[in-house]
């Protein structure tokens, strides 16, 4: 039997578990098969009833047919989600967008993520197997307390040769600095055949520039202000691309043609704003 589900309709889900990842980041686990089967880089539109609707990358869950979302409290919408408790209801629609692709030729992937940008990268690591010779992850945080998913990545990749590098801006853990500092260093020593990245756009611009300098293909999952998630509002446009439909993941050829990458985004009114 084929089930035809309209992924655009809101599905109400119960928050079954709240994981306090860091003082400012929580993960909310819920039962939803469509989200559970999301590909790395795909996102949900998450309805926080009578507060906001936010685009959120789909986080993994250990439970069968479950998925989760990971939120950092920041503005009004994210804080209203952050304050949700176990058994509260939220709505989800999607998953939307394209995703990271993992071809057989990728033997030595390098994943670079900042903050909650690590969410799609965690989902990507679940696809790694013995096919990969070695998996390297660079994860950035502001300070030790805000380091996200290090233990989780170690668990997922326990059977694969793995190198996890953590950078903190204040030097309280790992390497002092930002992810690009660690990236510059490791690119001098090791060879990689694909870079996967997600995080703040200016961080990704730095990573993209290094990938070009070292001739390593890259896939970047972009984040933009989104209203519809279904390609009709253009709030998320970057040049002539719609991040929600054409992305969220773009490769080096597409990024090279995006003059607005790391420079211009649209605010709520649609006016160009500058990083």
């Amino acid at each position, binding site marked *: 039997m084929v089930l035809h589900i309209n992924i655009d309709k*809101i599905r109400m889900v119960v928050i079954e578990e709240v994981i306090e990842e860091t003082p400012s980041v929580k993960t909310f686990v819920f039962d939803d098969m469509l989200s559970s089967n999301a590909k790395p880089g795909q996102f949900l539109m998450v*309805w926080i009833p009578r507060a906001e609707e936010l685009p959120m990358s789909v986080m993994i869950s250990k439970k069968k047919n479950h998925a989760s979302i990971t939120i950092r409290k920041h503005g009004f919408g994210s804080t209203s989600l952050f304050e949700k408790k176990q058994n509260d209801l939220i709505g989800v629609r999607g998953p939307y967008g394209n995703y990271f692709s993992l071809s057989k030729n990728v033997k030595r992937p390098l994943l670079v993520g900042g903050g909650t940008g690590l969410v799609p990268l965690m989902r990507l690591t679940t696809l790694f197997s013995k096919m990969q010779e070695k998996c390297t992850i660079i994860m950035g945080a502001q300070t030790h307390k805000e380091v996200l998913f290090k233990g989780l990545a170690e668990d997922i990749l326990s059977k694969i040769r793995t190198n996890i590098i953590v950078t903190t801006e204040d030097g309280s853990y790992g390497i002092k600095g930002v992810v690009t500092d660690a990236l510059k260093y490791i690119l001098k020593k090791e060879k990689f055949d694909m870079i996967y990245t997600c995080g703040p756009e200016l961080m990704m611009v730095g990573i993209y520039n290094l990938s070009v300098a070292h001739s390593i293909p890259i896939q970047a999952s972009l984040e933009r202000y989104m*209203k519809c998630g279904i390609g009709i509002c*253009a709030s998320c446009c970057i040049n002539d691309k719609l991040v929600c439909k054409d992305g969220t993941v773009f490769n080096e050829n597409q990024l090279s043609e995006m003059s607005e990458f790391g420079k211009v985004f649209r605010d709520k009114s649609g*006016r160009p704003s500058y990083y």
Partner: protein
Amino acid sequence: MKNNSSSTPTPTPTTTTNIKSTYNNSSSTMLSIDLAGIHLRNPLLLGSGFLGISQQVFNRLYNDGLGAIVSKSISVSPLDGYKGPTVVSLGEKGYLNAVGLANPGSDAFAHEIMKNQIPLIVSIVGSSQSDFPKLIRKFDKLNILGYEINLSCPHVAKMGMEVGDDPDLVTKIIKTLKSKTKKPVIIKVGIGNIDVLKLAMIIKESGADAITAINTIRAMAINVETGMPILSNKVGGLSGIPLKSIGVRCVYEISKKIDIPVIGCGGIFTWEDAIEYFLAGATAIELGSVIGYTGLKAFNQIKLGITEYLQKKDCKNIKEIVGLAHKY
């Protein structure tokens, strides 16, 4: 139909954007139309409100097959719009939206389209008569085809429908606009408190060049598990398939009684939907919700279906079927 050839943009050669010409196929003359003095390569327009803020996205939509683009409704000052959710899918190809007329405002949008070279109609919206001359001043010297006036947005106080429901204000706005611009002025109507036919008569008598019918209709959706309205604004506008038969009826009634070109709008998802609007009397059509369902490939799919229908019916041009249903 008024001749307003001065408003047709002069094609200027460029090296800055790649705008494909799609005139070099046999269906080009079959679909070309004249609308209020504007010549268009085909009668498919982007409905206002959809994807309407970025010149680069406009260029892409034109390359994907549209005859013209109608921008988001632009107000004098920028508007952030409402919080999310601003769009709700109802399933069955129906949508609700209450975006709140979010738009970059006239300064930023005039800057955005400064180098425009595609057939672009600027949708404008105002809360008072005095807003409209200000808007015309911003856009009239730019390379645009004309204006669509949003007198029918159903979910923003003192704008859109609240203006459209006041016949005296409608008359004043149209007369003001016509005295300030030589470009065509198209009025977008919806289902408000005044009968659409009565309003269309007033619009025609006030000197407008065309009517777009119809805008979304006030509607809402409540989530049954929480008991809460889904749209942050609670009430929004209904679009998509549920709107189609009402749109067809409005186009039929207006075009049968009033000698003014009508652009059909509301729930056009397939070529059959499009043909229905032309038979009802539409000179052109606007597409919107279908983009959320089918994506940008919808434009060429619908065009292909229209072309095949015209061939089957031995028609040389789409104009031949406009209003055919009136004779019954």
